[in-house]
């Protein structure tokens, strides 16, 4: 890419890093935080038939991981679009035989 040194590219990367760091902070809190460091304290809270700390350790954290990835995908696609680096504008991709069947041109 010829424009990868541009201020645009720098701003894109900065926003990307900020998004990733904030999602990883949540990732850390739900797994290492709630399910390991604070698990005994949270076990005093009742959550249906579970102790809450136990539920986070064996169920809740996994649900959070799934949600985190989907938030990332959604936000990144928007970010790509905002900075014009998404693959829909990729001329190369258009005439590449690999995607021909699956990606109709808009």
């Amino acid at each position: 890419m010829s424009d990868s040194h541009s201020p645009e590219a720098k701003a894109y990367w900065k926003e990307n890093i900020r998004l990733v760091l904030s999602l990883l902070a949540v990732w850390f809190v739900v797994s290492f935080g709630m399910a390991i460091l604070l698990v005994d304290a949270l076990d005093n809270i009742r959550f249906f038939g579970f102790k809450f700390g136990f539920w986070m350790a064996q169920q809740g954290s996994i649900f959070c991981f799934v949600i985190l990835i989907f938030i990332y995908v959604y936000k990144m696609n928007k970010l790509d679009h905002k900075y014009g680096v998404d693959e829909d504008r990729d001329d190369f991709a258009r005439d590449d035989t690999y995607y021909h069947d699956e990606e109709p041109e808009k």
Partner: protein
Amino acid sequence: MDVQTLTFIFVGVTFAIYIGIAIWARAGTTDDFYVAGGSVPPLANGMATAADWMSAASFISMAGIISFVGRDGAVYLMGWTGGYVLLALLLAPYLRKFGKYTVPDFVGDRYYSDIARLVAVVCVLFVSFTYVAGQMRGVGIVFSRFLEVEITTGVLIGMTIVFFYAVLGGMKGITYTQVAQYCVLIFAFLVPAIFISMLMTGNPVPQLGFGSTLVDGSNTYLLDKLDQLSVELGFSAYTAGNKSTIDMFFITAALMVGTAGLPHVIVRFFTVPKVRDARISAGYALVFIAILYTTAPALASFARVNLINTVHNAEYKTTPSWFKNWENTNLIAWVDKNQDGKIQYSAGKAFDGKPQFIETRGPEGERKISNSPTDTRNELYIDRDIMVLANPEIANLPNWVIALVAAGGLAAALSTAAGLLLVISTSISHDLLKKMFLKDITDRQELFFARMSAALAITIAGYFGIHPPGFVAQVVAFAFGLAASSFFPVILMGIFSKRMNKEGAITGMVIGLTFTAGYIIYFKFINPSANSAENWWFGISPEGIGTLGMLFNFMASSLVSRFTAPPPKEITDMVDDIRIPQGAGASYHHVKS
């Protein structure tokens, strides 16, 4: 129909499907063979990744382990799912944009060094062989228990099937068989879980049944009942932890980071057409994995309650047939310490070590063992691995469910084995031969070498399956520890730090690896008697030490790269390029030309 006939039918039908797919999806070029032509739709890749990842260990062993350790089992549940967040956010999209075939490709190109490439190849081979030996063993166990053939025959059949679709189809064949295998294994895992959840709690969703009250009229929650039963038998409460907090922390981190650094998982993200597809297919993969991983802890608790209720204080003579069947495969043993003819089950080991069966039978008809009994009241030895496989029998489910579980266990083991074998063969034909020793071979010759090395790898894996080295269980810690302390930091820094150079990366890998391997070898092989919390560094077990190795790797590489020459401009340009999704399709063009 009896279980055996049904098992033959189920296993036969699924194997026919796998072979059919292999014939349909033959690989014509190295591009097809290594990365399925980069044309796998993201949803299919998500399923294939899930099957690739969920091995015999996830399907057969994990719920069993959780069943015996209770809350601490969360290290596996979180460790083996949380890594996908790291993979999706930090590695997969950029590696897809890089657009080559293997992890050593990335390490070698990004660090402009064949030494770095070679270190990476050695790690890939070690990690993958460690893993694949366990899969072949899993195949052997399922065959010997459910089809009553010798373990050797079972392993040979498994090898033949994998040989067929891995050697013929390469990544293309493997991808679509993995999609089929995912469907088989998840169905086989869920059906008994739903049945048992219904029977015990009246709720068909195991994740909800897990937190519901029992239907036995007592109106107590399942987990409260389980805590009570565990404490009565002298175990600690099921929902309480036994491991130290620091050890939980380090093991979970090592498994997460190790997951994100495992080459056979990473390579799956090379097979989708676009960067965007790599991101979303990591999400799909985790959904498909989470379906099993949130069911497993529920199943573990159901199985535990059922087991205690069925065997504790039961007379040996009247135990159900599953008990004797598993005793015949050496996975259950009973010593009647107080000679009352009843099975007393409680905390502590019944005897030292694994059961050594002798030919004679005891007064109740039980198989006698030569181990010396311990002083505890416990009379029962149960191998944790049988919990998932025996669960349908323990819960008295219909025969077809039992047969289904056998087919599911095979699907889990075969899908992972195939993914690993492909990584091994790619490392040999592409990273070692094409990139280092035989640079002028043509695409056709490279494809031939890829097939040959796949065949060789299957043979070696099969040998390990038939003659398992005694240390298979121990070396699993190795696989994750090495992936965590070598690949993850090197790839991460390669993407996120433009200043990282080859001196830093190589020093980091060598220090991370040496430290982690040294610690594990010391406690697992040289001085196993010292393997307890008071001798560990900061109370970190060998399973969790990869996390510390990873931190050392980061520190060493940052320090060394600061005092050595920065990477050349074409490398920093390459890093700039992989940070931007646009043009991912192009990277295949320059590979092909």
